[in-house]
């Protein structure tokens, strides 16, 4: 979550679910919490019972809206205007928390003279290179600051979008934990925030046109409804009250998704709601350990603990990498300690100071290698082998057809899952088999289906949405051939190393030098998961478990597999397995599981106290400076050096954590402050600006720039056509907006739900949700069938007509929206077409996420054509809309 990382310093939720009960106002937007996180929603209900106002902003009236005080329907894809409108309301009505903003944010910091805003350049920021379609962010810096160390200023190549000196496409996500680096000097500040080039004034000008009228025009939200939200949020923020924002993939899955979250971060900072009880931004994630899988990443651009994967450079060494990547101030200054300790845990005794601790063993990136580039590489025949670990891209990924084309062109595929998901059987019954386009006999992919073990059949830890690791214990051994992924990966590595033993080929050295001697137990020789956890936690030269990342060294004397998890095995005890009952703890429950970093539950909680270290109010006290003991104390673990007093000011020349002052609550940031304006770390702008989705039926009224100028589009391909936008000819062929989502009764692409009788019967079929007005307009029968069409595909769905879907008035015209849950595929007990057949591959440039939350479409009555006629229907739509390979690819 690079937007949270760039704004605050770490890419995790700033707070935890139970803290919702302390909120005075909860805004759920980009999330359908009651449906997708029902048990977490109990804390919203708890707040409501205590008198909190609950607001749900969503295109649909959902089960969350049904329990909210206020439901605000808006056009899918317009949230930045709505949130920007709130920012403008706060700024123009002097509703911001001045003391908080002055002391804890970069509002007073002064920017360079040559920075140009979207207001100046009609929708783009200074530094745009139209040829490479990337930004050179150097003009976004503070005045007088060196830009040499700015994150992402690296000369990497970048695939289809071309190479540029400032290309940062694969780098934004590296800000998951660390703030972007900005060099060693403090920026000039104007504490009165009057300087025309200070961040605060730039912000004011930037959002000045995000008025209630603009919100109405773009989002379809009437001014009086907007006013109610603005009043609720501002009335419930300040010294004595806090507002919390809750989001999920309704915000992230856009070509400007990262900037959605940035807009909320700016608003929450202006209102003084970060680091305080009942405040913050709660990111609700959708898989049991999706936070864990970014912390300890199975991601191409990261190493554990948000250390960036190195890109290819001439003569790069460990030193030059660290010079470029680490900061001078804050905890990222210690990156050498984190990285060297990681290399020691990978390569053990083979990693020595003389060989740069095997830094050269790390493979190098050249641009983006995300799943969508990987699919292209499969289609091109470069990538020949593929592992799927509990993921179902044949129906679960955007433009699912491309995924299946990739699978069909492999040499071999390993699928590890509970059941025969569509990604294991596409060669038998995929849509291309049905249409006759492909035959099983022609597909050369060798497929291994290996049954996976369930969480009840293995030890291990999940990291939940609030960064908390919880251990699950093995209850029984898996039956038959079912095995854990720990077992599979360990034994696969063991076999490969055995087969390569004795090789003197240099390419095999990293494998043969790898530390890979985990103890096993039981009849199945299951690796001991706790031994792996101990390696993740790290140990010193004598093998003693470490208790804090502050104990890590860059000289090779410590090993640590993931520095932010250091402490989870403190004292040789599995802290993730702690289960002191809630009834025996206070509301923070610090002795249940273990949260990174350092078991802190609310991040940046230094900001819950005023500059002098006193709680802003008794009602909102969390941590505070205790004069008697000369340390920070409180209900939570202080997210601050325990003995650094509020009045501490660093000496000249101090670096790292020593360079943080007593009023720098954002300890990962290179300046210790939260960023209203992001001078580095994001690829698509230092401030959020509204751009229309890739496929949109309306024009952008704010700027001449219709879509994000730096969004990622694929090279022209027949199977990924984009649509005309706004008032372009042919746009009216796709007059409606569709958005995809989950239901309570199913899980993601359905692999863990559609196959279960008890869940399948609750939502038995793929369906669409439309308003009575749209049903009438298109002659669609309630309870019958409808076909939904985009330039990529046509799917059919049962029809649920409901007044919960509201027509909205946008830019003077009535716009209808179509709701599409995306859980389905051909297999299992509850079946249907996959919504992902409709989606295109145009991605957010920071995180390479697909835009499936706002697409333009058409809907027609009846079932879709079968066989080849389905493709002809889509081709006919493309022809009517005048779509070519260039459509929608312009800047």
């Amino acid at each position, binding site marked *: 979550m690079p937007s949270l990382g760039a704004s605050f310093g770490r890419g995790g939720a700033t707070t935890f679910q139970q803290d919702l009960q302390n909120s005075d106002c909860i805004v759920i937007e980009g999330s359908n919490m009651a449906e997708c996180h029902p*048990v977490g929603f109990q804390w919203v209900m708890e707040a409501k019972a205590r008198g909190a106002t609950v607001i749900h902003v969503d295109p649909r009236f959902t089960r969350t809206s049904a329990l909210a005080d206020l439901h605000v329907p808006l056009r899918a894809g317009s949230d930045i205007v709505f949130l920007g409108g709130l920012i403008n309301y706060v700024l123009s009505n002097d509703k911001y928390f001045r003391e908080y903003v002055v002391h804890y944010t970069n509002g007073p910091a002064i920017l360079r003279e040559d920075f140009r805003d979207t207001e100046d350049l009609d929708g783009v920021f200074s530094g745009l290179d139209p040829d490479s379609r990337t930004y050179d962010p150097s003009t976004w810096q503070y005045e007088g600051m060196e830009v040499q160390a700015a994150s992402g200023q690296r000369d990497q190549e970048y695939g289809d979008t071309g190479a540029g000196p400032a290309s940062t496409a694969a780098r934004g996500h590296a800000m998951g934990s660390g703030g972007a680096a900005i060099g060693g000097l403090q920026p000039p500040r104007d504490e009165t925030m009057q300087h025309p080039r200070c961040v605060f004034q730039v912000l004011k000008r930037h959002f000045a046109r995000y008025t209630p009228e603009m919100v109405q025009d773009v989002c379809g939200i009437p001014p009086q409804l907007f006013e109610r939200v603005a009043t609720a949020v501002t009335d419930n923020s300040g010294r004595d009250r806090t507002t919390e924002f809750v989001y999920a993939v309704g915000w992230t899955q856009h070509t400007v998704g990262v900037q959605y979250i940035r807009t909320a971060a700016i608003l929450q900072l202006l209102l003084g709601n970060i680091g305080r009880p009942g405040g913050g931004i709660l990111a609700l994630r959708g*898989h049991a350990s999706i*936070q864990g899988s970014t912390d300890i*990443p199975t991601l191409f651009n990261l190493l554990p603990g948000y250390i960036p994967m190195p890109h290819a450079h001439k003569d790069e060494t460990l030193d030059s990498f660290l010079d470029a990547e680490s900061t001078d101030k804050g905890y990222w200054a210690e990156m050498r300690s984190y990285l060297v300790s990681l290399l020691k845990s990978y390569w053990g005794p083979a990693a020595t100071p003389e060989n740069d601790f095997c830094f050269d063993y790390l493979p190098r990136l*050249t641009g983006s290698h995300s799943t969508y580039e990987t699919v292209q590489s499969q289609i091109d025949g470069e990538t020949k082998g593929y592992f799927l670990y509990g*993921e179902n891209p044949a129906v679960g990924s955007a433009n699912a057809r491309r995924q299946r084309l990739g699978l069909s062109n492999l040499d071999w595929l390993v699928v590890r899952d509970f059941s025969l998901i569509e990604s294991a059987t596409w060669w038998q019954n995929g849509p291309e088999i049905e249409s006759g386009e492909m035959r099983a006999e022609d597909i050369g*992919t060798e497929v291994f289906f290996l049954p996976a073990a369930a969480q*009840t059949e293995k030890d291990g830890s999940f990291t*939940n949405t609030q960064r908390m690791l919880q251990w699950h214990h093995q209850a029984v051994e898996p039956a038959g051939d079912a095995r854990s992924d720990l077992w599979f990966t360990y034994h696969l590595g063991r076999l490969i190393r055995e087969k390569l033993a004795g090789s003197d080929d240099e390419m095999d050295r990293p494998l043969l030098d790898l530390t890979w001697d985990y103890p096993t137990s039981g009849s199945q020789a299951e690796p001991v998961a706790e031994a792996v956890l101990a390696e993740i936690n790290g140990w010193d030269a004598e093998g003693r478990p470490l208790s804090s990342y502050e104990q890590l060294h860059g000289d090779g004397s410590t090993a640590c597999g993931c520095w932010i998890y250091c402490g989870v095995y403190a004292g040789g005890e599995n802290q993730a397995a702690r289960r002191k009952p809630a009834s025996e703890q206070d509301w923070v429950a610090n002795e249940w599981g273990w949260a990174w970093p350092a078991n802190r539950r609310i991040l940046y909680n230094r900001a819950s106290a005023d500059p002098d270290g006193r709680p802003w109010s008794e009602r909102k006290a969390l941590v505070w400076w205790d004069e008697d003991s000369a340390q920070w104390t409180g209900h939570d673990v202080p997210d601050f050096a325990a003995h650094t007093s509020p009045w501490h000011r660093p000496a000249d020349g101090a670096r790292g954590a020593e360079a943080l002052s007593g009023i720098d609550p954002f300890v990962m940031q290179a300046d210790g402050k939260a960023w209203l304006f992001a001078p580095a770390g994001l690829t698509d702008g230092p401030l959020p600006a509204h751009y229309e989705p890739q496929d949109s039926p309306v024009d952008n009224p704010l700027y001449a720039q219709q879509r994000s100028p730096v969004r990622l589009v694929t090279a022209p391909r027949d199977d990924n056509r984009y649509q005309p936008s706004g008032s372009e000819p042919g746009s009216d062929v796709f007059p409606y907006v569709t958005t995809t989502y989950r239901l309570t009764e199913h899980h993601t692409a359905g692999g863990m739900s559609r196959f279960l009788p008890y*869940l399948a019967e609750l939502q038995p079929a793929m369906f669409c949700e439309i308003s009575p007005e749209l049903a009438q307009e298109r002659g669609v029968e309630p309870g019958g069938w409808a076909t939904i069409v985009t330039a990529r595909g046509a799917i059919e769905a049962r029809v649920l007509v409901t007044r919960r879907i509201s027509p909205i008035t946008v830019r003077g015209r009535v716009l209808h929206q179509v709701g599409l849950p995306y859980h389905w595929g051909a297999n299992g007990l509850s079946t249907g077409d996959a919504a992902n057949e409709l989606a295109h591959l145009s991605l957010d440039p920071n995180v390479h996420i697909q835009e499936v939350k706002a697409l333009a479409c058409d809907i027609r009555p009846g079932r879709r054509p079968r066989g080849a006629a389905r493709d002809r229907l889509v081709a006919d739509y493309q022809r009517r809309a005048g779509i070519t390979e260039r459509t929608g690819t312009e800047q």
Partner: protein
Amino acid sequence: MSIRTFLGGWPVMRQATEGDALGRGRAAMSRKTEQLSSRIATADKVVKSVCPYCAVGCGQNVYVSGDKVVQIEGDPDSPVSRGRLCPKGSATLQLTTGCAREYGVLYRRPHGTAWERLELDKAMDMIADRVIKSRREGWQWESGGKRVRRTMGIASLGGATLDNEENYLIKKLFTAMGAIQIENQARI
């Protein structure tokens, strides 16, 4: 059998003797009903676990009898979930022990039209061979004149449903193999 035993179990007698004149309560209870006990009370052990679906992280108690999981319910001790579960979490028993699970390795040969059975050890050996081969075929020492030391021959997708320890081993092994195309649901 004594007459008392015989009559004692007879509903009519029980109606008369047990204050259940209408025979719709105590007297109507069958032997099975009287001996009823819950399968969680008779379980051999309770194992602490975490729900495998979304990221709320609800605590679960897994009840085991013999070598079988017999029930999964919310853990009331959890400060996050307080013992509650959603419909998916409540279906964890069916997910983990139900009819949808496959327990045998399946193999589809190139251009094949049906699944075949395969021994697990054999499958692991075959996969290891294929990894070594594809790794080598896709190997690059340099790209664009810069050292990359990597393979483009192998890719991996998935991880958000896995344990941290599993993701750690995957990233470690694949990085040592030189594979960079490692992705998961975090941005899907």
